[in-house]
């Protein structure tokens, strides 16, 4: 049971935060502190479990292994950055940090899940707080975003649940790590539709084309810290559970899903980056960018080799770091005039000259998204490309190249706006730095450049954690 301590700490901090609101309502921001401390404690505790012998717990429904620990650290990073970006933002409501903690708890559950039950619980636990969080600004756009997200989320949950039922019918177990032995002689008329439905259900969360349409509206309508959590945390949770189900549970049947995922990946990379091109709202642009990056992540799963799994896990961190950096810039701009109104490209005018440090953060983040050398994004794309070529799938590699090229144009547009000389926008002039924001951008910039220049430590971690085939023996 001590292996579930990180989860318990996060859940406990959520409850304690609720309690604090009731018991000492006078102290503002106490819940944020409680949750932040809970996140940090969970992160430290998870790190100490790094060398624990991998094992299955809770009736083989959860795994304790390096894969789960890495996921825990990633989603905690997403959670901490979200809390910091919403620091002192009282108009989001006092329950904001508590809901973030619950959502992060769901993502953590996905990291360790080895049965369809925790998969479903995890996905619902991460989604339900997000439906509420999306509306926490109490504006018409926020309400619309939340409602859309809720309706389509419910729709996709239905698909996911139906798929799980079919899989259960085919194999008579929910523990998907046991499937490799069963799947080959299971009832194919239940098995394949079941798998297809599950993939679609998760692909909705991951924002794969054509299940992506909710993303730009919801990203735009939600408060920026919430968008940050959706872009980083949700993506981590969905991508890694898809990898564990497919690459392990359906290891021997890669012929049935590998190429399909590849088609979806190429489609997603190209459409996502292409639609990012004409966007003028920065958060919408990031929404499409997130779709494009989901395509890159999907390549790592579709290659179905160990390099692909490692590359996908590797890519999560540079993507996440760049995302929190850029969202932090948006958040800092929102702290000036006009408040939470969406940041559009013309709001960036003159930033490179008036606010060189803020501009640097945006440059680093955008170049990492675009995959320019010396940033983590480049190294990640390189690994994905390598995995595609090792898997003898040159088509995937071509898709990566085309997606990257189109994406480059999209990511350079904000930078172009930023370097425009004629005048400085009101937003840039009136933006204010906050200590929490500075912390987030510092981590984002240092991490992005650090991974780009010296990727060896992360490669080491990823190569250990993407190896979850110990499950075969257990």
């Amino acid at each position, binding site marked *: 049971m001590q292996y579930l301590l990180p989860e318990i700490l996060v859940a406990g901090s959520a409850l304690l935060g609720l309690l604090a609101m009731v018991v000492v309502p006078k102290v503002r921001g106490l819940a944020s502190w409680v949750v932040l401390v809970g996140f940090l404690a969970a992160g430290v505790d998870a790190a100490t479990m790094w060398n624990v012998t991998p094992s299955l717990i809770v009736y083989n429904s959860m795994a304790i292994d390096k894969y789960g620990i890495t996921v825990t650290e990633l989603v905690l990073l997403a959670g901490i950055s979200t809390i910091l970006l919403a620091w002192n933002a009282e108009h989001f409501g006092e329950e904001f940090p508590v809901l973030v903690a619950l959502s992060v708890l769901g993502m953590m559950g996905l990291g360790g899940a080895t049965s369809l039950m925790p998969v479903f619980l995890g996905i619902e636990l991460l989604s339900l707080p997000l439906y509420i969080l999306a509306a926490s600004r109490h504006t018409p756009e926020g309400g619309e975003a939340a409602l859309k997200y809720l309706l389509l989320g419910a729709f*996709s949950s239905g*698909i996911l649940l139906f798929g799980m039922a079919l899989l259960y019918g085919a194999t008579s177990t929910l523990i998907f790590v046991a499937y490799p032995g069963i799947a080959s002689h299971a009832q194919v008329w239940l098995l*394949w539709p079941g798998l297809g439905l599950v*993939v679609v259900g998760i692909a*909705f969360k991951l924002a794969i084309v054509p299940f992506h*349409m909710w993303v730009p509206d919801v990203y735009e309508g939600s408060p920026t810290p919430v968008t940050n959590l959706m872009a980083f945390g949700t993506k981590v949770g969905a991508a890694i559970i898809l990898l564990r189900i497919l690459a392990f549970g359906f290891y021997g049947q890669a012929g049935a899903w590998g190429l399909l995922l590849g088609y979806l990946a190429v489609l997603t990379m190209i459409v996502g980056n292409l639609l990012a*091109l004409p966007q003028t709202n920065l958060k919408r642009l990031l929404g499409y960018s997130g779709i494009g990056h989901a395509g890159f992540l999907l390549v790592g799963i579709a290659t179905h080799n160990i390099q692909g799994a490692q590359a996908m896990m590797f890519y999560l961190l540079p993507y996440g770091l760049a995302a929190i950096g850029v969202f932090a810039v948006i958040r800092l701009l929102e702290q000036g005039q006009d408040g939470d109104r969406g940041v559009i490209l013309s709001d960036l005018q003159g930033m490179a000259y008036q606010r060189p440090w803020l501009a640097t953060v945006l440059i680093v983040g955008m170049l990492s998204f675009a995959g320019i050398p010396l940033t983590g994004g480049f190294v990640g794309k390189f690994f994905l490309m390598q995995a595609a070529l090792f898997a003898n799938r040159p088509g995937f590699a071509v898709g990566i190249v085309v997606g990257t090229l189109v994406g480059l*144009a999209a990511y350079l547009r904000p930078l172009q706006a930023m370097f425009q000389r004629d005048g400085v926008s009101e937003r840039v002039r009136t933006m204010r730095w906050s200590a929490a924001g500075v912390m987030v951008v510092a981590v984002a910039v240092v991490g992005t450049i650090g991974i780009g220049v010296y990727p*060896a430590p992360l*490669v080491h971690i990823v190569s250990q954690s993407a190896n979850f085939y110990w499950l075969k023996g257990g």
Partner: protein
Amino acid sequence: MQGLTEILILPLIGAVTIGAFKSVAPRRLAGIWATVLVLASFVFAVVADLHLAGLTAGHREITVTLFNWVTGFGPPIAWNLYLDPLSGIWLLIITGVGGLIHLYANGYMADDPDQGRFFGYFNLFIFSMLLLVLAGNLLILLIGWGLVGLASYLLIGFWYQRPSAVRAAKKALVMNTVGDVGILIGLALLYVRYHAVTYSALFGAFSHASPGSPFFGWVAILLYIGAMAKSAQFPLSGWLVDAMEGPTPVSALIHAATMVTAGVYLMARLYPLLRLAPGVAYAVAAIGTFTAIYAASAAFFQQDIKKVLAYSTLSQLGYMFLGVGVGAYTAGVFHFMTHAFFKACLFLAAGSVIHGLGGEQDIGQMGGLYKKMPWTMVSFLAATLAISGIPPFAGFYSKEAILGQAFNSGHDLLWMVGVITAGMTSFYMFRLFFLTFFGTPRNTDLYQHAHEAPAVMTVPVIALGVLSVIGGFFGPWLNHWLRPAFTAYPGAPHAALESGPTVGTVLAVGLAVVAFVVAYALYIRRAVPARAGIERWPGRWMLAAYGLDTGWRDVAVVPLMAAGTWVRRQLDRGILTAVVGVANGIWLWAEDLRPIQSGYVRRYALSIMVGLAVVLAYSLMKA
């Protein structure tokens, strides 16, 4: 770690701290701090070499892996440091001679308001050069290689207010980049074939290969192009003369004693590769010899004290390449060592003269300075005797070793040219010496104000002068020291020092003495002015180094500029228009796709349903 990291890190600390605090710290502190750090690094280098000497002869090498740098891209590449007798010698010269030059620069740069920047760059250079020689694999070597080029660029252009300095810095950088690209491609070829870049792995593989394959020829040529650019071998030699625009300590340290010998180091390091590419080895020797005589003749009529020394550096580098090319590796390294002593001494003494004359560099304005600067004159004389190959001064032994082995190995033509060049060297060096220090003062005004340099400058000059006298006696010791380095892999059967034929020694020394007498007769007895001979044909040509610069301009600069202009015009019209057209097309398409994103939830759900149908159909088809 045997102190390798410390050797490397001390100058880096200097560069960083000076760079960070140069605007707040006292002005003079930067020089003292930089000097102390380089001397400390020298102490660590001595300790490391002593440790190396304590190892058994068969395993005389120290490898340190700082950390894995590139992993996951195939075989990992690490930050390897590697110390063996060969790099040990370079370490001592870089930090030892470098330390003396740092000390000297404290006096030379004393009046410069920007000396913090100078010493920051200077320490950066020392760090880069140490990285270059301590590198355990070709990639780290290339990083050092690039960084010394950067430091050289920054220091040549140190007085950036002068357009000529900026131009010279740019020229050096461009020519060196040619070499860097050569090394990069050669390195890539080796990596693709052997999946490794460390010396030990590559040389181990070379040991089992047999010569003659074109692969080795190409790799060796590409790496040689790198060496050629850095060591200013003909025809990539023009930048070194222009590099004299930098402050004189820079010329002494970078463009005489250390950086320009990096090419010699690389070729000596790669002796197992040269075994596999005998044609390239011959080219190394032949181009080296040609550079030697070409530069010696170009030095005959130079009017600038530093330019004479620059051409003589080119010429001496040619000797080193001759040694390496004919397989006389120890002799080449030996000449590198003695050259570092006497050429640094010459440059520093010339710097003292320039300093004493308030910045005058034209030898036509000098003369009779021996009375005013006795210490400088004596050191300069010792170094001149050394470079001219007069026994028993340092240069005699190393030059004899190279020429003797060129003869022994049957390179008669190269040997002959080398002997003639020795005589020419003696002539132009004594011409310089006599014109500077003897005869009647040609500019009485300058002469009146001339003064001996302060002690902080004369002490390093004298120390180097002493080394120029005794440096030749290190030969047997060096021979013994370097033996393990050149016996570790096959490819250097004649690496040890050999003595040449007596007739060769007599001929070379005889020519040098005759040249001395001629120089004496011309410039002391008949008091020929410095500018004599440069009006007419041979002199004018030789002064312009046979029009090498014009040649480069006509062959490379002008056509490339024309091609660039042409391409830009064509691009602007044709290709760019096409690219813009495609971009616009994508744009329109993306704009067109936008209406699909209507905002209606039912449409979004429909999209999901369509996707689901496709996925299900695909799954069922596969099933």
